[in-house]
């Protein structure tokens, strides 16, 4: 039992951080939400930067504009870009990180050297990475002329940063359905897993959730909730939705930077697996590949989840890398973070910038909160 003195001490030690977090994090989140519900800077009158400007409460108007107004198409493209960037960036980092970790696990000579080399990119800031890769991905130089310099072959003509080619196209109106289907797939997968493990009770919840999600998609209820575009005919011609190939260069740079970090996480995980497990498997006649498949990889699941969370929240908030590589005005590689900056500090549309910031916060929350929740629950148990 702690003494009252200890408690007092603890209280005073914690007080400053609690106070500051309360002010500088939660109060400002509150202010951002508050601002996003006003019309601050929505029109030229009153001038947005007037002292004691009147901010009229307009409810969800800014959010509605972001999702429907034709001229706010950059926001919808930014959300689309974020989605694909996150998928390929996280996927790429996990793949390369795991690959490197497994290779280093083979007792190679000079392991320390390789580990350092692979980790080096992480010590750079995204701005440095972005600048280097910007040079390498110049349309008329760098990687594009590599085949020419090496083999005298025709240079590539791919426009790394501003390609308008869009693959995996989709309609904006179908977005909630696709997202629900993705959610369905994840939940169904986990439910099946739980079912196999015989944890019937948890599996039942999972199955119920999956069924609800499927029902939502099949019933078409989203079309009554999801706000329709103001100009659905024009939107695809000016801002087609899908995976814009201009993102490829940025994904390459980001994966290059962060896969070393992912590798380090996996390495730590692999080193944490007791040798006895491997030896026991060998004694039982398990092949080396089998050891990885059945012993190592399943043990790495929590690491994989942590890596996904860390990388995922980086990619959802990405700003500096894109800013350095493609600049804030490159429509093909726009991301929400950059929009907050340009809308707020260039165009003085503070309410709309806040709305975008709040939406970013929510998307990050969707990833982080369940993770924290499950973590807290595990530690309690």
């Amino acid at each position: 039992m702690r003494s009252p003195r200890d408690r007092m001490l603890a209280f005073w030690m914690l007080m400053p951080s609690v106070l500051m977090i309360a002010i500088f994090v939660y109060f400002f989140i509150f202010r951002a939400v508050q601002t996003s519900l006003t019309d601050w800077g929505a029109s030229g009158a009153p001038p947005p930067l007037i002292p004691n400007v009147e901010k009229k409460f307009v409810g969800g108007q800014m959010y509605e504009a972001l999702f429907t107004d034709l001229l706010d198409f950059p926001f919808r493209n930014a959300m689309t870009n974020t989605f694909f960037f996150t998928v390929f960036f996280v996927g790429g980092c996990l793949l390369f990180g795991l690959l490197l970790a497994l290779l280093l696990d083979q007792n190679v000579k000079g392991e320390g050297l390789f580990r350092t080399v692979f980790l080096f990119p992480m010590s750079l800031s995204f701005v440095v990475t972005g600048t280097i890769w910007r040079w390498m991905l110049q349309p008329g130089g760098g990687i594009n002329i590599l085949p020419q310099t090496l083999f005298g072959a025709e240079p590539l003509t791919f426009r790394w940063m501003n390609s308008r080619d869009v693959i995996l196209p989709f309609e904006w109106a179908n977005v909630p359905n696709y997202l629900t289907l993705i959610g369905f797939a994840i939940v169904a997968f986990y439910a099946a897993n739980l079912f196999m493990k015989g944890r019937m009770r948890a599996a039942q919840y999972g199955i119920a959730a999956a069924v609800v999600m499927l029902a939502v998609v099949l019933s078409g209820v989203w079309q009554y909730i999801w706000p329709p575009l103001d100009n659905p005919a024009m939107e695809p011609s000016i801002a087609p939705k899908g995976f814009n190939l201009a993102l490829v260069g940025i994904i390459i740079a980001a994966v290059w930077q962060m896969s070393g970090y992912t590798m380090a996480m996996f390495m730590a995980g692999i080193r944490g697996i007791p040798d006895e497990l491997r030896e026991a498997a060998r004694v039982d006649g398990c092949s080396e590949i089998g050891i990885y498949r059945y012993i190592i990889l399943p043990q790495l699941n929590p690491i994989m989840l942590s890596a996904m969370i860390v990388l995922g929240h980086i990619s959802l908030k990405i700003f500096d890398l894109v800013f350095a590589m493609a600049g804030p005005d490159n429509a093909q590689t726009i991301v929400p973070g950059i929009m907050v900056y340009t809308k707020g500090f260039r165009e003085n549309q503070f309410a709309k910038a806040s709305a975008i910031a709040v939406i970013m916060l929510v998307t990050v929350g969707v990833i982080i909160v369940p993770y924290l929740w499950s973590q807290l629950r595990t530690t309690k148990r």
Partner: protein
Amino acid sequence: MKKLLALVLVLVMALGAVRAQSGQLEIFSWWAGDEGPALEALIALYKAANPGVEVINATVTGGSGVNARAVLKTRMLGGTPPDSFQVHAGEELTGTWVVAGRMEDLTFLYEREGWFDAFPKDLIDLLTYDGGIYSVPVNIHRSNVMWYNPAKVAEWGIEVPATWDDFLAICPTIQAAGVTPLVVGEAWTVNHLFESVALGVLGAEGWNGIWTGAVDPAGAEMVAVFEKFGEILACSNIKEDAAGLSWQQAIDKVVNGTAAFNIMGDWAAGYMVTTLGLTPGEGFGYAPAPDTSGVFMWLSDSFGLPTGVANRDNTVAWLALLGSLEGQNAFNPLKGSIPARVDAVDAAPDLYNDYLKSAAADWASNTLVGSLVHGTAANERFMGDFNQVMEIFLASGNANAAATAMSVICVQSGACGG
């Protein structure tokens, strides 16, 4: 506890710093790097005249002030304005800061220094808002200039086009020689080309009409502008390497002959003379952008006096220096721009090269119109949203859609008259 103590300490120190500022002058600008020496020359002049004042040169790098403007906003909103800050003259100042009541009227200074005669009337009109004048222009740049390489143009056997139709006519000839007829760079340089094209198609009166409300931004005239712009872009590198090029790299292509023409502001002359060591008229040629002869589309760096600054007297002395003959002739030859005063170049012709002399002559005689991309003609909101209009046009090639979108942002930003 430690954090809190530290915070309190920092706050106390910050307050102390503000108090002790009486003998200082803080100048906030984005003139670093190549443009640094020009500002330093001005500061040296100021220090010579006001030896007791400590000058704080606060620069935030980033071309055209893209980053400086964001920093400035946080300082102004936070109630600690710099004593004087650089801003593009015109709407970028008026539409953001003057309408918000955060700038002081400088008419008294104009009267005291006799500047009503020194600056062109068209310029003063654009600096005036509601009867007051709010900034002192240090320099003038011209936006509608076409650059080329005279030797290459002679080699290809083409004439420098005087109209856009001439340009479109020689476009296939240039392309046949394996050369890009018109080179553009990253996003803003495309907008920069647009304003020259629009000025060419609409004429000076039509261009001004957009900002006074006389020209319907969704009307047939604007649609014609976008259509012409589309034809011109088809002769450019927009579908190739454009987005990866800075404006300097675009100019490089003209200089080394892989592109024929480039429309860029006349800071390009400064780049070619100072950095590339070329002689105006020999190493590079210049002409008004097609169809804009006799019209000078200007932009200007200026300084103003924010309300509630710590060192008002020092700032007024600084502004007086900026508008003086001495100040303008110290700054502009180094910056590669022309003085806003019409009498400055004649007072010291040796300081200016041939290009700048010709620009100064045009400045004194041409019709003056304000630039859109560089903050003279339209407010920041319009400038930002115009990127979306351009993206609509570039993605869809639909001139009607672009003109309609332009009319929408006109209303939303309140930039087009009324």
